[in-house]
């Protein structure tokens, strides 16, 4: 069990530094040391180190990163790819953007190390298109890295070749799903690919591909530099390391907080963020992005911020987006916004998701228009239940889970609204 209270800055280490994004700042403060160390190791050793560090995917799913890397066929000599999933789009999340703002080189270094580990020579960073400024910062960093010999045909004289290019999305939440991203990178609609085969075997252009979240890749240089053991001193046993938490809502200091996993949520809200703005109280909390089931204020008591603890409460850590819902928010409106979002973003290929998200949104439109029916709550629950676990990707589940939790935990408020709406 590591330390769950002491704050160590890994992915936000350059936060607030003057000229934080510049290559020089990065190198002067130990940047690319992890890469140099990685070149002294065998690729297999790097994968083992990341495995031992217990690093889990920071995009939302929490899949062990080292294990993902180890799925890439070692004897395959053809092209392989490392993709940085910088398509931050889970509502409530703003951490990957922040890493780019703090220092994009950390992401590049993580990608090069990952590339060396799995034998890939090409990487892409896929960013949502409307991070206009952030894309420029990334492109500048890529240029700097080429100029300094960290990218190109013979990196630091090792003979290892690695190229990174940037690719912008075009406004589709689904491209945050790793295979939706790959379809998009291929110039297609961002529709997730049928699995199996998984991307590590057959991904971008049917070649072995690793897609990692920005935050995951940004944590890699530190792990290689300091070792798996050091990483495991932070966080909990099953959720080691630090995680970025995106705190939003009517707290005094919303923002990105890098905290050891297992950190108490109440401490984050009340101490780090300074508590709620005067006159507002917590009504509920969405702990892992809008796909995560909602928690009541009561359920936050004693809750710690790690994968296991939040799962035990019936929700999920997800992307680390903690949205504090205060008492000014109508749960009918929250549900409407949530189902509208998934309806808008469903890619449309799998029937239960395409039709289910539309159906939920359609029912909510009716409720908002005063045409709601008492049985709508149960119906929405049933629709959601039957959207879960039935589709190629998790967007259907992402729509179903919050819906189920909202109609369950705040059913009375919605039922009351339906009743009043009818009378009005």
């Amino acid at each position, binding site marked *: 069990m590591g330390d769950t209270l002491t704050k160590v800055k890994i992915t936000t280490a350059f936060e607030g530094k003057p000229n934080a994004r510049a290559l020089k700042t990065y190198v002067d403060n130990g940047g690319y040391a992890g890469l140099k160390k990685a070149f002294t190791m065998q690729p297999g050793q790097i994968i083992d180190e990341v495995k031992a560090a217990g690093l889990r995917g920071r995009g939302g799913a929490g899949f062990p990163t080292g294990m993902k890397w180890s799925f890439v066929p070692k004897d395959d000599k053809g092209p392989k790819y490392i993709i940085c999933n910088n398509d931050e789009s889970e509502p409530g999340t703003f951490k990957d953007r922040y890493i780019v703002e703090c220092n994009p080189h950390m992401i590049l270094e993580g990608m090069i190390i990952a590339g060396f580990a799995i034998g890939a020579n090409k990487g892409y960073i896929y960013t949502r298109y409307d991070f206009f400024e952030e894309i420029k910062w990334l492109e500048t960093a890529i240029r700097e890295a080429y100029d300094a010999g960290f990218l190109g045909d013979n990196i630091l004289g090792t003979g290892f070749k690695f190229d990174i290019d940037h690719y912008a999305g075009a406004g589709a939440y689904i491209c945050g799903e790793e295979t939706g991203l790959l379809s998009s990178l291929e110039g297609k609609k961002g529709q997730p690919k049928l699995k*199996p085969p998984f991307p590590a075997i057959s991904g971008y252009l049917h070649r072995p591909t690793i897609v990692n979240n920005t935050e995951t890749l940004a944590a890699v240089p530190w792990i290689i530099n300091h070792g798996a053991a050091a990483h495991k001193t932070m966080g909990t046993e099953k959720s080691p390391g630090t995680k970025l938490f995106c705190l939003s809502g009517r707290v005094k200091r919303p923002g990105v907080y890098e905290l050891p996993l297992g950190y108490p949520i109440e401490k984050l809200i009340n101490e780090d963020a300074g508590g709620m703005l005067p006159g507002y109280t917590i009504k509920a909390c969405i702990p892992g992005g809008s796909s995560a089931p909602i928690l009541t204020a009561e359920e936050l008591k004693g809750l710690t911020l790690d994968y296991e603890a939040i799962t035990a409460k019936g929700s999920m850590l997800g992307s680390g987006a903690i949205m504090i819902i205060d008492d000014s928010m109508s749960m009918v409106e929250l549900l409407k916004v949530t189902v509208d979002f998934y309806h808008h973003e469903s890619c449309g*290929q*799998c029937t239960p998701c395409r039709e289910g998200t539309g159906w939920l949104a*359609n029912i909510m439109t009716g409720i908002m228009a005063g045409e709601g029916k008492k049985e709508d709550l149960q119906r929405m629950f049933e629709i959601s239940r*039957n959207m879960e676990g*039935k589709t190629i990707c998790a967007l259907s589940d992402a729509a179903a889970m919050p819906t189920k939790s909202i109609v369950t935990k705040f059913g009375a408020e919605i039922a009351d609204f339906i009743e009043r709406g009818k009378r009005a």
Partner: protein
Amino acid sequence: MSETVTFKLNGKDVTVPKGTTVMEAARRENVDIPHFCWHPGLSVAGVCRFCMVKVEGRPKLEIACNLQATNGMDVKTDTDEAKSAHKWALEFHLINHPLDCPICDQAGECGLQDYYMSVGKYQSQMTRPKVLKPKMLDVGRDLVLDTERCILCSRCVRFEEEVTKTGALGIFDRGDRAIIGTYPGEKIEHNYQTNLVDICPVGAFTSRDFRFKQRVWFLKDKPAVCPGCSTGCSVDVYGKPETRSYFRLKPRKGEANGHWMCDKGRHMYSHLNQDVRLRTALTTDAQGRRKDTNFAGAIEDLGKRIAAVNPATDVALLVSAQHTSEEYKSLFDFFVGELGIKKVFQWREPTEKIDAFDGLLYRGDHNANTRGLLNALKEAGLAANLKNEFDAAASSAAKVVIAITPEVPTTFPSFEQQLEHLRELDFVSFWTLAGSVADNKKTKHAIPMKGFPEKKGTFINHEGKAGKLDSPFPCPVADGRDLTEIVAALKQWRHSHGSR
């Protein structure tokens, strides 16, 4: 020889080649797993999420179409969980479907209807207004598209990408606003478009040719071989026996054609309906008066004319390559073997490009049985090449010419012109399906024939493979006969009139 795996399907051990999916294995075992997007002739899309099955030991249901059977796997298609998933998948497919079955041509052969009866039977919970989409779109010669009926299974898009490689269809927009279509203002041009109607599991694509003609439950389908070219696609002919009429052809899975057939082949029913057929036999008396007669009358007239000349020198046979091998055998056994005629010519289309091939199915030889005819000629000891053509017949100074016309006039652009040419001869007996043959006053003698769905026999395709006709429809024309029957009648006449 190849590696196999054994798994349990609904409790029964099933052994299949390694790599077989549960969907494919279930089909072999006649276990129906409901599906829309999966099609045996296309890649796996896995998007309709209908074919959910339970695999023991796995937390979630799996889709059978993308699930490879492995040794020891225990798959069940009928657990309560699977059945509920099927019912819900169907409900999701139907919530925005217009349910306009009473005016939909697909009714009666629609996946949505069939599955509602087999796995649905629920009371729909959908009470909100439906998503509306464009209807009645003209997207090709034979295609009418209703995007509201479409369930976005993507079969048509995959067909365009994988089979014809034309990529003319896309799914535009996203979510439940997604719409199948061509690029605005463009139409599908190729010769395989009606396959889109076949593979569409619902009534989104309907055939302009078949549209509103007949309810499918009144139709009877029988297997046959397409007579449209030398590929010899396996087909089902759909007819309505009560009215002795034909409505359409659809491909049946076969060695020559896989799952598909071309649009030209689709029309190989239109020459079979009574309105265009020769319905009665025709003779001309000594005064030159044409009159309708029955089959026996026509045989008697022809029998007399042959008896009046020396068959070996005065009778010529002009044969097209659209009849069965069995018919050719009886024809040549009699005319060549018994009567000793030497003048046997082929009726070929002068403009044909016999070796042309579109890369998929359609060939330049628009005869189903060129190989069969050549084989029969050879067996009869006659010149068996394609050069021995019609012009020779005209100049052969035969007193009696028997012209066995192509069955399908539309495959012979020069058909009418050739008839003109033949009518100039002294006496020609036309054996034909085409009513237009007798329309011309110069035609002196004609015998109505049976069409390909009305007879039994064999077509030999371009690569020498046999295609069988063996479940005949009743012939819409009472006096219609195949070559074997006509020859038998002639033979009978000659025997009873003492000539040999």
